[in-house]
């Protein structure tokens, strides 16, 4: 077994062990820390110099049958998937750390930690798979655990309804995605599920333009639902409000990035002509995300809803990077996936803590708590700045790359994408407005009389927050930490897509 196979198998095996009776929190924590350490080691050993080729490759052939693409359980990493693996591993550790202790859970702590591991493990498996079938299958692994987590451990009265909404929505989205993937595989000869081989096939013997449009459209809708692309976003905010904190962190931070990853890894290289033909549609939708959802975000009256909508809004920038389709834009998009994943997980972790201690997240009922919990106030300030895209945090570096990448080619006159970029820039202002307003409403001003001061964040709570913050600032100051991996992979991808 290669290291990578162990990384993929660990969370699933740990989930099995918990199911069979191992101590829940201890096993989950042990497995996720091990995964993080092994991923970091993999990253250190990863050599960016081998031009974008897959590393840590392993393959176990499963099925060779007439009339069905050959199938193998294969894993491997290029720069993009490495960055996503790191993101998943970091957020998973933080999510397990912020989970309540077994004794604090009213019902089945086993199920809680088991589901958490399955959600994280599914995401890791999806990012590491080099076989299209397992890329899809691993992502689906998270579907039922998410349903159970929101339905059983969710925070609101409406949690069952929300659990149904997200499950049906994502289930239908995945079915559309499945059709798109089957069509793409058949269109490319129907001989294999191996992504690398399919990419080569797509540049050597591309699908007919008509088919490419269909494939890209289906993949855009399928992946788009998972990413909460406008207008398929309505599941996201309520789900994050109702979900238990660690699930919101994992879902908004990691799982949602799967859709974007799929667009970059599958949709762009398989159907480049389709991507070009549907570019304007993508631009309109992403502006919907940035401007329309941005304004919706400003209108929110409680922190959790605001964060839920802000995570929908920020997807627009990543789409912009993908729409740019050049090296800078795409690598900015991947970097932003990482940065946004970490920063939204950080924000959800803190809003979960606030909800637990104060019992409310409504702006009207909170105020001035910066004096009561100064340490949390400081951390929240950092996270809010990061999310609004201030320099020094990974989000800034990534957004700059996206904007410059998308604006490239402006010297020949402004095209649709340049105009879209100009409009999108206003999104930065919008996110500054809602983030700062939220910060002022919660941490500044007079303290409402009824509000009792809880103890400030203890080390147990601070640790996961600090892990996330360190990752955010390290990449913010030295984006090259990740860019060195991302860039060669993007170059290869673009070369393949012609």
């Amino acid at each position, binding site marked *: 077994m290669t290291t990578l196979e162990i990384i993929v198998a660990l969370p699933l095996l740990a989930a099995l062990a918990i199911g069979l009776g191992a101590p829940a929190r201890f096993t989950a924590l042990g497995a996720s820390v091990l995964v993080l350490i092994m991923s970091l080691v993999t990253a250190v050993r990863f050599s960016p110099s081998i031009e974008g080729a897959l590393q840590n490759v392993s393959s176990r052939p499963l099925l060779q*049958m*007439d009339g*069905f693409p050959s199938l193998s359980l294969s894993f491997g990493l290029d720069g993009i998937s490495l960055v996503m693996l790191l993101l998943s591993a970091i957020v998973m550790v933080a999510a397990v750390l912020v989970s309540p202790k077994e004794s604090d859970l009213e019902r089945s702590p086993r199920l809680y930690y088991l589901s958490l591991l399955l959600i994280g493990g599914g995401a890791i498996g999806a990012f590491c798979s080099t076989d299209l079938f397992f890329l899809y299958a691993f992502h689906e692994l998270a579907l039922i655990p998410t349903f*159970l987590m929101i339905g059983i451990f969710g925070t609101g009265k409406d949690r069952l309804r929300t659990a149904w909404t997200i499950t049906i929505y994502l289930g239908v989205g995945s079915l559309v995605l499945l059709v798109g993937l*089957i069509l793409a595989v058949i269109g490319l000869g129907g001989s294999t599920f191996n992504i690398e081989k399919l990419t080569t096939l797509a540049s050597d013997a591309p699908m007919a333009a008509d088919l490419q449009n269909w494939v890209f459209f289906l993949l855009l809708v399928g992946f788009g639902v998972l990413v909460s692309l406008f207008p398929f976003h309505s599941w996201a905010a309520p789900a994050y409000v109702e979900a238990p904190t660690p699930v919101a962190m994992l879902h908004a931070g990691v799982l949602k990035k799967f859709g974007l990853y799929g667009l970059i890894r599958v949709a762009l290289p398989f159907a480049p002509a389709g991507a070009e033909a549907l570019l304007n549609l993508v631009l309109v939708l992403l502006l919907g995300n940035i401007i329309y959802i941005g304004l919706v975000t400003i209108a929110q009256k409680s922190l959790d809803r605001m964060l839920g909508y802000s995570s929908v809004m920020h997807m627009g920038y990543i789409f912009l990077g993908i729409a740019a389709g050049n090296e800078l834009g795409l690598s900015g998009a991947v970097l932003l996936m990482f940065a946004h994943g970490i920063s939204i997980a950080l924000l959800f972790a803190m809003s979960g803590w606030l909800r637990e201690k104060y019992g409310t997240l409504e702006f009207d009922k909170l105020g001035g708590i910066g004096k009561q919990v100064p340490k949390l106030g400081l951390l929240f300030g950092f996270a809010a700045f990061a999310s609004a895209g201030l320099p020094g945090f990974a989000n800034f570096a990534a957004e700059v790359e996206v904007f410059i990448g998308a604006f490239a080619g402006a010297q020949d006159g402004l095209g649709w994408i340049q105009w879209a970029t100009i409009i999108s820039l206003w999104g930065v202002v919008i996110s500054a407005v809602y983030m700062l307003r939220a910060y002022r409403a919660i941490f500044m001003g007079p303290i409402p009389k009824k509000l009792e001061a809880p103890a400030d964040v203890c080390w147990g709570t601070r640790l996961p927050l600090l892990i996330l913050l360190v990752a955010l600032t390290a990449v913010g100051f030295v984006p090259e930490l990740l860019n060195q991996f991302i860039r060669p992979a993007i170059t290869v991808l673009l070369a393949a897509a012609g």
Partner: protein
Amino acid sequence: MPVYFLEIIVVALGLIMLLVDAFAKIEDKRSIAWIGMVGLLVVFGLLFKVQWPESTDGAFWQFYSANDQTSLFYKGIAIVTTLIVLIMAADFRHIVVAQTADPEKGAHPQAGLGEFFALPMFACAGLMLMASANNLVSIFVSLETVTITFYILVTYLRRNVGSLEAGVKYLILGALSTGFLVYGFAWLYGITGSMQLSEITTALADPEVNSIAALFAFALILVALAFKVGGAPFHFWIPDVYQGAPTPITAFLSVGSKAAGFIVFLRLVAPFLASDVLADKVTLVLAIIAGITLIMGNLAAMPQKNFKRLLAYSSVAHAGFLLMALASAPTKSSEGSLSPATVVTFYLGAYLLMTLLAFLVITTVRNSIAGEEIESYKGLAKRSPFLAFMLIISMASLAGIPLTAGFYGKLFVFKIAVDQGNWTLLVIGLIGAAAGFYYYLKVAVPVFFGTPAKDEGEELSTIPVSAPARAAMVILTIAIIAAGVNPNLIIGLFS
């Protein structure tokens, strides 16, 4: 060992069980079920030891096909199903006794239980024979062996009105469909002059064949077979019969009877599809039936509140997916694509694993909870996490969630439909699969989100699971997940 010994052994086992029941004085009649279980395990092992005959000239081979790995696979399905049905039947004994026991004095307290264990063996022999039948006569004989056994078994709980009602419905409609089948066979014989499937294939391939008469024969046969497998609009008996029949028998009907129905379907449809004159029309009719079945099964399953009724409609829905594969038989221009036989056989293998798992859970729970409504499963996860986990695995697989065997089944069906460009069916199938997410997961809601109903403050204990049932559940779960990662585990068995 010649392959037809297997059927002989199973029939002999059934007879032994009947004789033991009649003449041996035993306290607990479960030992009769044990004879059957052990015997079937041995027969299952023998499946891997059979030898094909060197020559197939004798008259016998006109009725019994040889050299066919697929038929062995279907025999395996029949044996495994019967084995698990016996496990369930042994757990179900209290209910059988309570609803059949003779009020007379001096009778054995478990009077009438022995036959409940022995009859499935004869059905099993019939199913195994059906897997190898290659002649209209042997198809008919084996089909009727199975159906007549089922008439008895469905109505076995003779003091339960539901069971009697189910039995009567099944008897009348079953007899009617048999009539259609025989009439269809008669026409087919009239057109082709043979009862032998291989000769019928040659005769129908003749471009001069009387196509109107052939299509009429096909229509009659289709009505009968659609009835057997639960294809719409001939599926109306399924919900009532499934709900009324004793649960182990429901499982038997749902898996064994369906698998047997489909192998006959594959055999009987093949000659029509091989004929250039008839193929298009036959495919069209099959596609229409598949579409209606998918819509009826999936939509009607959504509002169901009784678990067995839900599984009944789910079995109709799965029949729809299987028919969709049949309706996507490759034409001559698209050689090298998946064959419907492979897809259907794999799907049935996966369907066996997940459906039997669900029924094992239902039977076990039924011993402690008097009810088969979905609501009565409230808080099962708290009370018996093991059973709740088994239930969610089987539901996930039935819904077709990846990394379970059920997903590959649906994937193969969709793939073959895309290959043949059956876009309308594909869209209907996708809507059906999406509906499936809802109605299968709906079962999880009371199981995981509810709290167990307490009887007068009494703390509820874990639901007891008998050892064979537990072993069967664990094996089925492992098989579902293993085949969900590597489908070759099932495909390798029949190709």
